[in-house]
């Protein structure tokens, strides 16, 4: 029997598969499909201090091997998230391991939302700091593409919460390992990567971008090789646990990330194709481990052979 549990230092998860923020709503949307406790963790869509409309439409465009999105972090705000029936109260009751993704337009806003969640942290396993959303003008990626700001935002959040912190890194930088080192030094307990790659697609008949925001974040199988490479680089650069994601559609895809050095993985765009994708990925990892005579997930983490 294979042991699928993963020890992420600050907390344990039942299996290595999470949902990527922004692709699983607040969990509530999938409650009729399966028991959320079957997932390693549910990572909810980004939460800010205030409610946010998000970007104008169209917000998505399908491209070869994936999609572009510029949703722009539409969300209920932290008050409604903590007390609205279909958000945190539902998640607490579901028994799922919950990771809350947070964002802000300023360091003060990041700290405020982190402090608010810290004050009512029952049922919250960790916070994931989003410093990598490419689709909002203020905040988000501005913090994720500047080493000093990345360090600053994480170290300030560290002061206001004792919850485990995961920092979600942007791939839209020259050396992602530098950012992993910076946020680890600032007190991040883990890193997750990659967020989407900034992209564009133009309708040549109308000569307009397919997306109202003009640029969007590319996700899906198209980005997987980039994501695997970045996870490989980050896992060699830092000691803290690494959560890998980017185009995972199957258990085999997830195993690539684990071999590259990820301690756990997240499934994102694949959920839009098939709500059951995360469960299929868990099963696929288990089958791989059995086929290779492994007793635990940890045995294949970073177990890539030299060329």
């Amino acid at each position, binding site marked *: 029997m294979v042991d699928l549990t993963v020890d992420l230092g600050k907390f344990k998860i039942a299996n290595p598969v999470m949902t990527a923020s922004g*692709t699983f*709503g607040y969990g509530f949307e999938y409650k009729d499909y399966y028991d959320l406790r079957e997932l390693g963790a549910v990572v909810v869509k980004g939460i800010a201090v205030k409610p946010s409309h998000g970007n104008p439409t*169209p*917000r998505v465009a*399908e491209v070869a091997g994936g999609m572009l999105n510029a949703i722009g972090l*539409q969300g209920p705000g932290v008050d409604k998230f903590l007390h609205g029936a279909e958000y945190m109260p539902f998640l607490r009751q579901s028994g799922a391991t919950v990771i809350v993704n947070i964002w802000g337009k300023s360091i003060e806003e990041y700290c405020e939302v982190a402090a608010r969640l810290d004050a009512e942290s029952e049922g919250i396993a960790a916070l994931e700091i989003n410093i990598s959303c490419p689709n909002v003008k203020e905040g988000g990626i501005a913090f994720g593409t500047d080493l000093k700001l990345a360090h600053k935002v994480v170290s300030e959040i560290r002061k206001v919460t004792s919850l485990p912190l995961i920092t979600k890194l942007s791939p839209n930088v020259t050396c992602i390992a530098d950012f992993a080192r910076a946020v680890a030094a600032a007190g991040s307990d883990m890193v997750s990567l990659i967020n989407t790659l900034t992209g564009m697609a133009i309708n040549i008949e109308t000569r307009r971008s397919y997306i109202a925001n003009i640029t969007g974040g590319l996700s*899906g199988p198209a980005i997987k090789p980039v994501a695997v490479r970045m996870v490989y680089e980050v896992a060699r650069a830092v000691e803290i646990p690494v959560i890998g994601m980017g185009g995972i559609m199957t258990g085999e895809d997830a195993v690539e990330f684990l071999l590259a050095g990820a301690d756990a993985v997240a499934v994102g765009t694949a*959920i839009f194709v*098939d709500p059951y994708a995360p469960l299929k990925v868990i099963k696929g990892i288990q089958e791989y481990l059995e086929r290779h005579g492994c007793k635990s997930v940890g045995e294949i983490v970073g177990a890539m052979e030299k060329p």
Partner: protein
Amino acid sequence: MKTGEIVSNRVLQDEYYEVKFYAPEICRKTRAGQFVHVKIENLKDRILRRPFSISDVSGDGVLTVVYKRVGKGTEALSTLPAGTVCNLLGPLGNPYSPPDNEEFPVIVAGGYGSAATYLIAKNSPGKGILLLGARSKNDLILIDKFTAAGFEVRTSTDDGSQGHKGFVTELVDRVIEENKDKKIRFYACGPTPMLLALAKMLQDRGCNDAELSLDHLMCCGVGACFACVVKVRADNEDGWRYARTCKEGPVFKASEVYTGE
């Protein structure tokens, strides 16, 4: 037969097709106005599902979708032969509230909006009227089915090739005038500009319980991704908020639709 298996897939008229899936469980649950999210199997490098209004369901588990060939997805779908098995999610979305015995249903449909509203007519306890507008007479579809369901059909076309020359919304006031003595209940589906114009019109005439089916480019289909949003009225400083058509719609009350900029 397997669930999701295509029973038939044929040209209805011009660029319009009709595909029938074997899907007994979805058929049993379906109510007028809901949709099914289809994974089209031969889409090569495109991976996302395509949402389609459920046009009809039968007691023996056959689900009908009427679609127009407009892009890569529908083009690929149009080539799938009977026997192909597709993964279907559904029924999704909130349905129309069916008309009761007292109500006189008036359906306003633009283009293939008639496909999304046919089940209202089929299940209606009383007869009603379909106002159907399209670009040209070749785009007017399912008239015979509505007629068979006992509905009177009045048409409009942009080019005047059949019925009234102009917009379908221009037919609305006469219907209200002619049926003053009845309790009219409006239902609508069609292109967004038409629906916004209609919503404004119906709001002005006090028909706030009218129900309109809105949509936008959809992705997950279950409310998780926030791609398919439209503006609805809200009690906040802007007066509107973005609502997910897949989860909070696609059917909205006319009074909810935000018709400002």
